[in-house]
């Protein structure tokens, strides 16, 4: 609460964004997902992109924190609290995006009454729930200062964190209908992306907290986290390289198509920006120890990595939607004629396209703002104003 109060302007802006987002979501509830840019061809959009992205972002925190316990990396321990807060907020956001994306939210209880064990989505829900619970326990025990409990929880946290990214990847990676998704390396890619984007976000958060004077982090720690980040970026790049090579080498029709769309099609800007600005450039920055000592450069690299991974989510998700497996005119029937403003022959599309609507963007901004507020509140409660018991009680409703 302290933090929120201290940054009234920021809090105000964020609150407005949340209110706008809620309004847009209500509009979406009333009008249906037709208010979004999604359609029968590209049936997932910005929400699922954000879902993937935030599942990934939440990883960095928990992995850093739990490695600290498991592998006794002392210096990581200092940042465990902000790391796990970040992780918790991110996973909540990720879950929220799935719920927002559902067409029949009011039937969501059907998941509990009749879960289909072959659905990766069911397992993802389970793993994410576990992950969230672990995060909460983690926070709880850290707050209580119960190191033993923390070290026990962290032993579960690490594999569950890995699993969260893997199962999320399997939502996509097990669908052989989508050439660009169906690959065994998708789970490793997700884990690697989670590590680099999560760490990068953690670095940004730590730098931010340090600058605000809320949480002191040594430049050494920043540098060593940045070193770890460089490694993760390299691993991520390696996995992507493996995937691209495997897709390209046999020269299959489907493989060539997906690669041409990736390198020269509608998703190409995202692909190239990710490769160059999200992998190559930050790696080149972070690979030099001197640069890792420069917090501006670390922040720039981290920002680029986060952006790059977001772009990767975009090209990963959308490239496989562009060209239907069964191709021919008139093509796919887009969906709601109201939302698509489509009439007659324009109701069909030979290749699928997608652009988020204003409603979708505002809902996403609203959720991000909510996450930011939650992070501020939780940080204020658990770190900045940890001693202030009354602030704790007030913070709870603010994050709800």
């Amino acid at each position, binding site marked *: 609460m302290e933090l929120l109060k201290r940054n009234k302007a920021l809090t105000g802006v964020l609150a407005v964004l949340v209110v706008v987002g809620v309004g847009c979501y209500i509009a979406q509830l009333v009008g249906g997902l037709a208010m979004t840019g999604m359609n029968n061809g590209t049936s997932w959009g910005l929400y699922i992109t954000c879902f993937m992205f935030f599942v990934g972002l939440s990883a960095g925190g928990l992995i850093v924190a739990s490695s600290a316990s498991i592998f006794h990396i002392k210096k990581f321990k200092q940042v465990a609290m902000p790391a796990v807060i970040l992780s918790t907020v991110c996973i909540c956001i990720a879950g929220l995006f799935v719920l927002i994306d559902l067409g029949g939210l009011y039937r969501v209880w059907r998941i509990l009454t009749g879960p289909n064990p072959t659905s990766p989505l069911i397992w993802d829900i389970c793993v994410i729930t576990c992950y969230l619970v672990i995060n909460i326990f983690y926070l709880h025990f850290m707050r209580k200062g119960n190191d033993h409990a923390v070290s026990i929880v962290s032993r579960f946290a690490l594999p569950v964190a890995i699993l969260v990214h893997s199962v999320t990847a399997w939502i996509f990676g097990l669908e052989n209908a989508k050439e660009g998704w169906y690959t065994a390396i998708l789970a490793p890619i997700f884990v690697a992306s989670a590590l680099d984007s999560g760490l990068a976000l953690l670095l940004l958060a730590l730098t931010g907290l340090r600058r605000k004077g809320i949480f002191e982090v040594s430049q050494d720690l920043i540098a060593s986290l940045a070193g770890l980040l460089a490694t993760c970026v390299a691993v991520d790049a390696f996995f992507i390289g493996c995937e691209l090579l495997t897709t390209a080498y046999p020269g299959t029709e489907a493989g060539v198509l997906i690669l041409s769309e990736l390198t020269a099609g509608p998703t190409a800007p995202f692909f190239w920006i990710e490769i160059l600005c999200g992998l190559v450039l930050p790696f080149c920055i972070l690979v030099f120890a001197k640069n890792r000592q420069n917090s501006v450069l670390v922040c720039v690299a981290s920002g680029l990595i986060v952006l790059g991974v977001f772009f990767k989510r975009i090209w990963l998700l959308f490239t496989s939607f562009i060209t239907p497996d069964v191709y021919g005119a*008139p093509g796919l029937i887009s969906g709601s004629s109201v939302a698509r*403003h489509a*009439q*007659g*022959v324009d*109701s*069909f599309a030979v290749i699928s396209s997608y652009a988020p609507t204003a409603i979708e963007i505002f809902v996403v901004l609203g959720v991000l703002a909510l996450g930011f507020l939650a992070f501020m509140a939780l940080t204020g409660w658990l770190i900045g104003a940890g001693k202030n018991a009354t602030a704790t009680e007030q913070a709870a409703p603010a994050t709800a």
Partner: protein
Amino acid sequence: MTGMTSSQGGLTRRSFLKGTAVAAGAVGLAGAGSMISTDGWLAPAKAHATPEERTAYTYHQKHCGGCCALKCTVRDGRLVLVQPNDVGEDMYRTICLKGISEVTHIYGDGRVQTPLKRVGERGSGQFEPISWDEALDDIAERVKEIQAQYGKDALLVASCAEADSTFLGPLLGAQSGGFTGIDVGVGNGLDPATGLGAGYAMSAPEARDWARSKLVLSVGTNYCESSLPSAYLFVEAKEAGAHMVTVDPHYSTTASKSDEWIPIAPGTDAALFLGMVSHILDNKLYDDAFVRQHTSFPFLVDDATHKLLRDHAEDPAAEEPETGATNPFFVMDPVTGNPIRFDQMTMPALSVTEAPGNVGAHTVWDLMLETQKPYTTAWAAEITGIPQERIEALAEEYAEGPSSLALGWGGNDKMTNADISGHAAALLVALTGNIGKPGAGVGVYVGPDYNSWLPALGAWPVPEEWAAADSEVSLYDMPVKENNCHGAIFWGDFIAQHVADMNLTTQWADTLDLIVSIDPYFTEGAKWSDYILPATSRFEYDDEIGNIADGYSQLVLQEKVIEPLFEAKTDLWITREIAKRFGQDAYLPKTGAERVEAMLATSTDPQVAALKLDDIVANQGVWPSPDRSEIRTVADDLKFATPSERLEVYYDNMVPFDQALPQWEPCEEIGNEDLRATYPLQLTNTRTRFRIHNQYNDAKWLQLYYEPTVVANPSDLEARGIANGDIVEVFNERGSFTVPCDANDAIRPGSVRIYEAGTADYTVAGNVQNTTNRTTIERGYSLMCGPVIPFSDTLVDIRKA
């Protein structure tokens, strides 16, 4: 481009369409209350009753020859389901996407909902609603004025094939607009030879006969689209082993379903046939006995007059031509060399050279050998673009037979030289005897009911004084020739649909004192009307029984499916109300049932005459023709409906035009090389599965698949910097229209294609007819059905709009 474009100036295509949706239903109807709103009219009749469902039977379009018998489900007073009537064998249970689209189409924005009176300039599309009484009183008054001032024939009552409009023209003594100029191109040239087909080339057997053919040669016809309800007959013939060969400039649906597609230069069908004729002659592939016994090839032609030798000169004023029995033709006795009555010689000489002496005449055969000399296969290859060897092989295959020659209305038919191709086809048939036997036939196979066992329906008896006046000038010539038409009642869109060169047509329409449009839908032509009267669709009637029709080897009954929508009235009701204002209504049937009973009772077929309406109702509205398990064929006895009962290939009346035997002539416009330099693309107007002419323009479910689009070969588009999907202007000196464009390799380079009846409300701008060619050639007026309107003999260019 007159008022049409200005009315939409500055609007985007979408907003314009939206605008017209309103305009179409209730043009400028502010204040008309619930009448304007579709919702009010479409609200369930019994909101709190439990859904009541019932079935009714009717038939669909006569126009396409499908006349599909339909089973309709009605729930809460609404049409909710249309499916094939499930009475009878599978092959008669037909339907296509147009029938299904009616479930939403009849409730569509395009319906005229109330009688409308024009308030703006003609063509501006501004109308106000008026009551039926007011509209009918006004119309009757003005018809009386016009007829009093200029004579009865000053009124034109013209009707499209779909309307139930038979009584009005005769009862008003109005003229009907004469020849139509549509679908008569090939028939004009073919039908005098067979005596069949009525000028429309409707001389073919049922398409089922194809399964017995060795070769089915389709030329200028797209059967798999224009005869959609019976498309299965095409594929079944192919499966039965018939060699399906389609000649078409474009890779049509039918071409793609054929064993072989032979691309041809547009407007050169006649050259192909003439080349085939030469090859058949050169290689003696003709059926010698058939030629001598069943054709006019052995007939003698007077060297001096170039006319067929007859017993005596025909009285030019005679109503019916004299028969071969009353005024015989002459052939040559091959032994004596003397002319002899054709019916007294079984194997006459084919050529005068077969016998000694000089009789001052030559046989038709002799003349043909002479006229065919230039038409070598090498020449034909040059003209048509088909390789010489392919033409020769095709001629051989056709001659071997049994072969079906399927001709059409949508291709070369719409060009100035169409009659020559029909005439040349007649030569092919006459040479090879590919007619009157299983698997052989010629003509238009499209439209299952046209060539089927049509039960003979009688007619409602009308007073003798009811008679339509003659049309001295046909409708298509009214814009350019002096005539006595001062007012018109149109059932259907005559202004935009039946006449080419629309800017000229509308100028003429604007000179008329009265135009009335009767149509369920708001059409382009309606914009030039003074009054628009809303007619019911096929599915609405004000009585339990509407009408009866001769369908595909069956009688089909029109039952009331739903109550008339909006303020629409049946054609019969409208006729009766007009008749009332002329004191003539007592002679009209009071109910549909009364009329149907009369049509049955007056049939010349005793079986039909004995039918009771209730029996047909009990059989789901269908009475199957008793013979229909047999394939209906044509001229089995090889007796043709010509004066000599033979295939008469020599046309006396064409002597002045040097076309007594078919002589190649390029198309008037697309054959004009100078004009081609300016407008290098031929614009072909074809039919499509998505429309029947302009019908269904406003059917939303069909709009999913087609909106007026010009389709061009990618090479022609690239040359003009146009990309697939761009909006283009199609233009020539007559006018222009603007539509999206598709790049499609199926289109012959040098041609662009658009489906018929793209009217301004459905294009980005303008009517397709703004560009089309109306030239009527002189020879045309001596043909059976007058000149054909050469809609596709049109040159244009396109540019990015």
